[in-house]
């Protein structure tokens, strides 16, 4: 008798079982959240509002903390409401400061979102002792390690009814959000393009650019809120802006821009996770926070694309209006 015969018939190999239990759900969460944020972020970058994504991601924090303190849970509904309310407050504050403070809009945005974020951190610190469930660390970098799944050990159990009932809910929620965002963008494609390109014209055609922008913004806030578990708030910003900015440098067709952006986001998610959990233990002796590697990778991608573009432009390959 050798070692393998000790296992019951139809057992899932140990390596695969380990992957299913420890890595599969976090990997899904990181990838789905990265792809969703990159997709929605691509519309922010198109309208040159990347700063706004940054501002939203930071300023929703006090809303999240208050919602958590009031309900005592991290249920998505109240968290989203809190975040949306905080975002709305920030938007109003930015408007008021721009109008009456006589400063430029970007200065007002910078002022408001840092204040809101600081307020959130302060609230967290003040209540940190009482709540192990929400702390600064998890807000900054997510809690992927909590997404384990006690996977069945045999194939038959894996495919049996109810085997998937124990799956952690956050990754599934993120998958649902990815699906919802993709469907929205696909169905509303001509509309979203027209509204992003020429809002004044879109308005004259009766397309309501303000409502459409607000809807997209609500979806973005939802994505940021749901991504907190997966990648944390700082990371949400990196994924909202880096993959779209990279894609923008590489193409000037809208379809390939958005697809590339989603692809780059997903790739940063997968590679970043593998780097943190598989490569880091070999290189550093311990695994590192996946959210950090994911964000760093998307930043490196942007730097590479920028270097590539700069070189192409310098050698005169890029078409310019004067070529015509």
């Amino acid at each position, binding site marked *: 008798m050798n070692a393998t015969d000790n296992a019951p018939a139809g057992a899932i190999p140990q390596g695969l079982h380990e992957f299913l239990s420890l890595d599969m759900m976090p990997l899904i969460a990181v990838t789905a959240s990265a792809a969703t944020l990159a997709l929605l972020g691509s519309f922010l970058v198109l309208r040159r509002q990347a700063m706004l994504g940054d501002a939203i991601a930071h300023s929703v924090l006090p809303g999240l903390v208050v919602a958590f303190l009031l309900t005592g849970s991290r249920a998505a509904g109240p968290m989203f409401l809190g975040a949306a309310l905080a975002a709305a407050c920030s938007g109003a504050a930015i408007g008021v400061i721009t109008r009456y403070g006589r400063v430029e809009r970007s200065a007002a945005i910078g002022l408001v979102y840092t204040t809101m974020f600081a307020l959130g951190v302060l609230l967290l610190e003040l209540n940190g002792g009482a709540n192990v469930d929400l702390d600064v660390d998890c807000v900054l970098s997510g809690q992927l390690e909590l997404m384990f799944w006690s996977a069945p050990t045999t194939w038959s159990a894996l495919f049996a009814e109810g085997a998937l009932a124990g799956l952690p809910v956050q990754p599934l929620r993120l998958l649902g959000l990815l699906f919802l965002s993709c469907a929205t963008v696909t169905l509303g494609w001509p509309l979203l393009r027209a509204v992003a390109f020429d809002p004044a*014209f879109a308005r004259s055609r*009766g397309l309501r650019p303000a409502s459409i922008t607000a809807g997209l913004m609500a979806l973005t806030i939802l994505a940021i809120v749901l991504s907190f578990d997966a990648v944390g708030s700082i990371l949400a910003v990196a994924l909202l802006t880096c993959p779209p900015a990279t894609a923008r440098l590489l*193409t*000037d*067709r*809208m379809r390939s821009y958005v697809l590339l952006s989603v692809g780059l986001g997903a790739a940063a998610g997968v590679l970043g996770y593998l780097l943190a959990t598989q490569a880091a233990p070999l290189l550093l002796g311990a695994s590192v926070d996946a959210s950090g590697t994911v964000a760093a990778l998307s930043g490196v991608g942007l730097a590479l694309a920028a270097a590539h573009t700069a070189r192409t432009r310098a050698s005169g390959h890029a078409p310019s*209006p004067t070529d*015509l």
Partner: protein
Amino acid sequence: MILRRGQDEVPLALRSLSVAYRGVPALWDISWEARKGAMTAIVGPNGAGKSSLLNAAIGALQPISGEALFWGQPFQHARARVAYVPQRESVDWDFPVTALEVVEMGSARQLDWVLPRWIRRDGAHRSHASEARACLEELGLGAFADRPIGQLSGGQQQRVFLARALAQHADLLLLDEPFAGVDAETEDALFQRLRRLCADGTTVIAVHHDLASARSRFDDAMLLAGAVIATGPAREALSEDNVRRAFETAGHASHQLV
């Protein structure tokens, strides 16, 4: 409301229209009627409210009093017959969109906005794409249809905008500085195209920055400086006297052109 006789023949009628922008009044008590089939230039010093006038007419700015009526109706009931071309600065010309895709925004009708073309099997999208292509070709941009707009020159970009307006098959064109950044030759071609539209009964109202060509090429003019200084046939409305008065009203010391 009791319509005046023949009101549904007037493409655009402004009735005591006043507009304030961020609390500062921009237009006072504008009353004016556009002539069907005519080309009207809206002329005035910087800050005279030319763009605000168009924006208030199409409801992008809420007037503080008065109204704008298109064929006797408010804009939301007439928008299918009106093509609006915004100022070129209002658009990001680096946007990743091709010339053809921009013009297709003009030919798009209802369902075209919310359903991607591969979902639809009724062939409607094919006709709207070929229509858009025809409009581009008419303005001499057929070869540039699939170019991203960022690769086009300023004049070509303006022609794309005008092609989009043509694709709307509108009865009234509202153009905000349509000849900005356009070379003389292109301007000539565009004017000829607009002329032919007018001959077919289309009405053109354009914010225009050049006094000389406003006098020579347009039928009518409205001289603005917050309030209406003069209206009527272009040469008369834009007389030296009137223009000087407009600049004085607007508080410009020098009499240089906008």
